């Protein structure tokens, strides 16, 4: 194809790419360095002569130890995990059913319903959190994990439905018809033939939904109040800052540990995640 000169490749490719990599990853590196840096080194003026803030020669695990032993952080991790898993599961079931119905079945108002679900996909939680807090209180769900398990699907279900609907449309109808000729009911054909074929789509939707629920903040902030019920993002914001004082070592340790589970899930399923991400914006 087009042959490039060497210096051009450096100027227009390697250097910009390196800058992107450094810019993207530096905050994570900084999180890590801060989390293992002793307090004495953390709070030293930026003009101090012997200051070498890019690394530390005396790494310590004190912040991590304090975080795990003296705060309810492990509890928050568990809450976040539990809520994310259950709301993802609910959303997948709803999304599978609704996506199948919209992709395959003929019924009145199918088009309108599809559009309505797509529109709810675009409703941001920040538009609704005040009235929703009132509703949660009326349902006696305030300060329970169910407040989140039932509300997270509002932004996960439309996404799962949309993604899986697209996936079902790519599966040939003939497969189902074969099963029906062999005597399966519609429901049976859906569950035993179509759903197993759709496993990659289900994984994509599930991984993406899981990261979205792990990331959610405003509902968790408004609906939960006791420290031991909180999720990681809310706990870190509201419990690790005491008064006006920021304990940066502990905060960064919390940020790091709170990111690791979701980063692990992501790293095992990068391709599925990317499919979910790019599928999430395609009609």
């Amino acid at each position, binding site marked *: 194809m087009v042959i490039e000169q060497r210096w051009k490749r450096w100027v227009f490719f390697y250097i910009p790419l390196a800058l992107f990599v450094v810019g993207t990853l530096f*905050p*994570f590196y900084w999180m890590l360095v801060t989390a293992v840096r002793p307090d004495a080194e953390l709070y030293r003026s930026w003009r101090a002569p012997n200051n070498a803030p890019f690394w530390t020669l005396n790494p310590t695990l004190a912040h991590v130890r304090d975080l795990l032993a003296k705060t309810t952080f492990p509890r928050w991790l568990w809450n976040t995990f539990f809520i994310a898993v259950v709301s993802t599961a609910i959303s997948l079931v709803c999304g599978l059913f609704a996506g199948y119905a919209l992709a395959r079945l003929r019924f009145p108002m199918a088009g309108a319903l599809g559009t309505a679900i797509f529109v709810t996909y675009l409703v941001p939680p920040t538009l*609704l959190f005040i009235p929703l807090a009132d509703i949660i209180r009326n349902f006696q769900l305030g300060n329970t994990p169910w407040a989140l398990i039932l509300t997270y699907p509002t932004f996960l279900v439309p996404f799962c439905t949309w993604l899986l609907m697209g996936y079902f449309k790519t599966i040939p109808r003939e497969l189902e018809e074969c099963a029906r000729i062999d005597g399966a009911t519609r429901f049976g054909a859906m569950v035993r033939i179509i759903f197993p074929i759709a496993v990659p789509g289900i994984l994509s939707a599930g991984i993406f939904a899981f990261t979205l629920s792990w990331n959610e*903040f405003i509902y968790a902030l408004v609906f939960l109040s006791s420290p031991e019920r909180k999720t990681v993002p809310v706990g870190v914001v509201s419990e690790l800052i005491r008064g006006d004082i920021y304990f940066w070592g502990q905060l960064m340790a919390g940020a790091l540990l709170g990111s690791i589970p979701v980063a692990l899930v*992501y790293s095992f399923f990068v391709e599925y*995640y990317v499919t979910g991400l790019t599928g999430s914006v395609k009609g």
Partner: protein
Amino acid sequence: MTDRLAGGAGSAAGVEVALPHPGAARAPARTRVLESERLLAAALLAPTVVLLGLFIAYPFVMGIWLALTDTSVGRPGRFVGLENFVRAWTDSIFQAAFRNTFVYTFWATVLKLSLGMWLALLLNRHFRGKRLVRASMLLPFIVPTVLSTFAWRWMFDPTFSVLNWTLYQLGLIGDRWWSLSPTKLPFLSDGTYALACAIVVNTWRGMPFFAITLLAGLQTINPDLHEAAALDGAGGWKRFWYVTWPLLKPVTLVVVVFSVIQTFADFQLIYVLTGGGPANSTHLLATYAYQVGVHSGLLGEGAAISLFMFPVLFAVVWLQLRYLRRLEGA
């Protein structure tokens, strides 16, 4: 399933019986229910419709009602008409928040789109370690915003900022002849700087989404087109402008719509980075609605403030739907 086969297996072959045809009316009631397309559709859609109705449609209607009353925490309100909207509109903090929301959305989207496009073009080439680079580029997007924003807040710290330290070491701040500023930069302690910082952090977080989605779009473009354009003498810039960009426009539009909605309704980033400060100068509509509705407990006024987001979101969604329709029509 097999009992239905047995039921009609008198003379006809099983194949014929299993196909839905008028004779199926004689089948047992349970089967009829299972075979009805409408009933099955209704049953499959019911959980979704109930869930979305209960936690999206109902709160939306209730939000409008709340916004028309003077409800506060623990006190049922009475109808006050548009008073909340008028009060918000004349409130100087609200006006600042309203302006900030547009400034924030506009600049963050422009930066995310241009940097994301650039990164996508870089990642579309072949090089060693491409998969690893691509995977790590998405990290800011998957790590919880609140947690990564804390890292940024620490990097912008007034006393211990690593960014100020770096600029100082490079001589960009200080008393050298090439210094741009004599003192350290007031990252989060000055309203204008703070909003700019928020835009930078939002760009950092959202750019990978643009890059990866645009990259997926780029990969569907036939390389022959580029080759043909190159043979016709088109340079890199011209090839981008006349080949890549027109083909990428549809996916770009969709990504921009998604990002505009997310950015316009953003809450967590500002909540952690500045908390709306200094002196309420960096509020967005969502953070100000939270401050009024949840912190001060004025539910009616808070609901009214967040409803100010609605017209813009509605317009964006409407454009998106019209565009999708046009694509389907074509």
